[in-house]
């Protein structure tokens, strides 16, 4: 394998970080920068804010009064449970070397955070820049917490609470951690630079062969989708397609809400939905810009893209709905904003701001079409449109990332850490080739999560039962499952 051939393997997951800022590769072990560390901790709490209270309010406002608290309990409980699983074995399964299974999943070497001290550091996307491992672990924890919470929107107002919690524990373990590993786990820029430099410095054939073998080993110390070169800056596949398809599968398997299509199921408080959506938008800056793992120009790019793509999608849904249904609605506006946030997630560190706006416009219109027309045509009851917004928006964003990363379209281009060790240069890119890789990653995620979720839902249904009895559903989950009500007038 030559260096040029192996380039293909380092395309994934990495923005062409600010060239000027990247220091030449040096032998000294880098130390975390206080600015990077601070930013990443703030980004982590912003992502936590997306779950609680953001997502809880966004979803809660959309259900009927009698189910308000059930949604809040579900989101909050999922965050708490998954946070514990994450430190127990989730982080280790997602972000360590898994030996023979390393293409698919990590191992247990850091279970219970063994060996992680305040001095431990992890790589970012720049040579010579590291952040404390605890910071990175905490940031990724917030992603693991919010992703399964997204699923509940599809099965809200009828899911049995105990069944949901068991499902979530299984789901993060066999669906989320592997996908996160496959898409985001890699050796890091310094390991690549060091191995590549050794190859360039190798004097004779024997040394070259050893160095090449070492470089190959470093390159293959990455998840499968990363090795394909799939680009997913902040979680289009890992978070949104993953949760979105699981939601659709769940909605199909659990069945429609009692009275769906016959009774009024209008949202009980769009005021809260708007507050939740606004918190999601604010928190998403931590999600997207934080995914750069350091504070630099690419972070700012992701930040700006997150701003403008969301604005474009909100405007786009508003206009399309206005034309199609006669009135511009608040729910349309905030749904468009969330669709835009979802779509820009995989692209936010790769696309340029103008490309992001185009993506946002597309996301608003496409997701509107899926939530209004496609859902009605097929008749499935995805209560809060997890599929129509997260899965569809995620697919759109993942595919568009392959296009918008193009330098010619204002994108960053693809990072190459190998050709010139210690600096990042622009890697090879063809639109068709990248789009093909993105498509493969999308299909793989749909199959992995779709089939895996179907098996898990079936299993939980057989053992516990997914649905509450009809009379409990009629009474409302707040009283029936949790013994309290949201509003005591």
């Amino acid at each position, binding site marked *: 394998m030559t260096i040029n051939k192996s380039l293909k393997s380092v395309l994934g997951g990495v923005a062409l970080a600010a060239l000027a800022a990247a220091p030449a590769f040096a032998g000294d072990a880098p130390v975390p920068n206080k600015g990077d560390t601070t930013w990443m901790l703030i980004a982590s709490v912003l992502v936590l804010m997306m779950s609680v209270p953001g997502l809880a309010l966004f979803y809660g406002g959309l259900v009927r009064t009698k189910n308000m608290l059930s949604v809040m309990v579900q989101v909050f409980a999922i965050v708490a449970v998954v946070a514990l699983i994450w430190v127990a074995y989730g982080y280790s399964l997602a972000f360590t070397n898994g030996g023979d299974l390393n293409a698919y999943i990590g191992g247990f070497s850091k279970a219970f955070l063994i060996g992680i001290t305040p001095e431990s550091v992890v790589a970012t996307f720049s040579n010579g820049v590291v952040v404390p491992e605890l910071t990175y672990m905490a940031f990724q924890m917030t992603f693991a917490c919010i992703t399964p919470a997204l699923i509940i929107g599809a099965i809200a107002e009828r899911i049995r609470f105990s069944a949901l919690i068991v499902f979530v524990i299984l789901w993060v373990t066999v669906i989320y951690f592997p996908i996160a590993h496959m898409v985001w786990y890699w050796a890091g820029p310094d390991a690549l630079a060091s191995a590549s430099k050794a190859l360039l410095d190798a004097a004779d054939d024997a040394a070259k062969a050893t160095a090449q073998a070492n470089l190959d080993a470093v390159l293959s110390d990455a998840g499968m989708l990363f090795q394909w070169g799939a680009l997913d800056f902040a979680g289009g596949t890992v978070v949104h397609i993953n949760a979105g398809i699981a939601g659709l599968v769940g909605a199909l398997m659990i069945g429609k809400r009692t009275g769906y299509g016959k009774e009024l199921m*209008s949202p009980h408080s769009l005021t809260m939905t708007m507050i939740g959506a606004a918190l999601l938008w604010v928190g998403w800056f931590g999600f997207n810009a934080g995914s750069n793992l350091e504070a630099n120009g690419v972070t700012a790019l992701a930040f700006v893209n997150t701003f403008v793509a969301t604005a474009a999608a909100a405007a786009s849904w508003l206009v399309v709905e206005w034309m199609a*249904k006669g009135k511009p609605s608040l*729910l349309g506006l905030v749904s468009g904003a969330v669709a835009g946030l979802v779509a820009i997630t995989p692209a936010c560190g790769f696309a340029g701001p103008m490309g992001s706006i185009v993506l946002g416009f597309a996301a608003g219109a496409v997701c*509107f079409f899926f*939530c209004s027309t496609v859902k*009605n045509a097929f008749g499935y009851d995805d209560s809060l449109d997890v599929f129509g917004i997260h899965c569809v928006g995620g697919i759109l964003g993942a595919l568009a990332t392959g296009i918008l990363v193009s330098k010619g379209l204002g994108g960053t281009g693809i990072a190459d850490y190998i050709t010139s060790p210690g600096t990042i240069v622009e890697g090879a890119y063809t639109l068709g080739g990248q789009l093909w890789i993105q498509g493969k990653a999308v299909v793989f995620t749909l199959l992995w999560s779709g089939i895996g979720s179907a098996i898990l839902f079936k299993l939980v249904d057989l053992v516990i039962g997914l649905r509450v009895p009809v009379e409990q559903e009629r009474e409302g989950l707040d009283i029936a499952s949790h013994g309290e009500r949201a509003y005591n007038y």
Partner: protein
Amino acid sequence: MKIVMAIIKPFKLEEVRDALTSLGVHGLTVTEVKGYGRQKGHTEIYRGAEYAVSFLPKLKIEVAVATDMVGKVIDAITAAAKTGQIGDGKIFVFPIEQAVRIRTGERDNDAL
């Protein structure tokens, strides 16, 4: 003694109250209700899901008055609650068998 019960548009409450106060009617019970008549309902659309809302919010007011006041009370409510649009509401009149003021024990017309 009669109960005059009227179903009115919610935003007309203050005008009706003012009209009744100027007649010397001191006391009024208001209930938030939902219903439909000739106005029927309207359509609400949430992310493309259309719901026909058949029951519209209205206010039900109830006034207990002496029998000789009924005509004036009806006229006052009609004048104050009228917009001329469909959905203005209706007035119903019922007889009262007895009335008691709880604090003093006064009966019938004295209790109104």
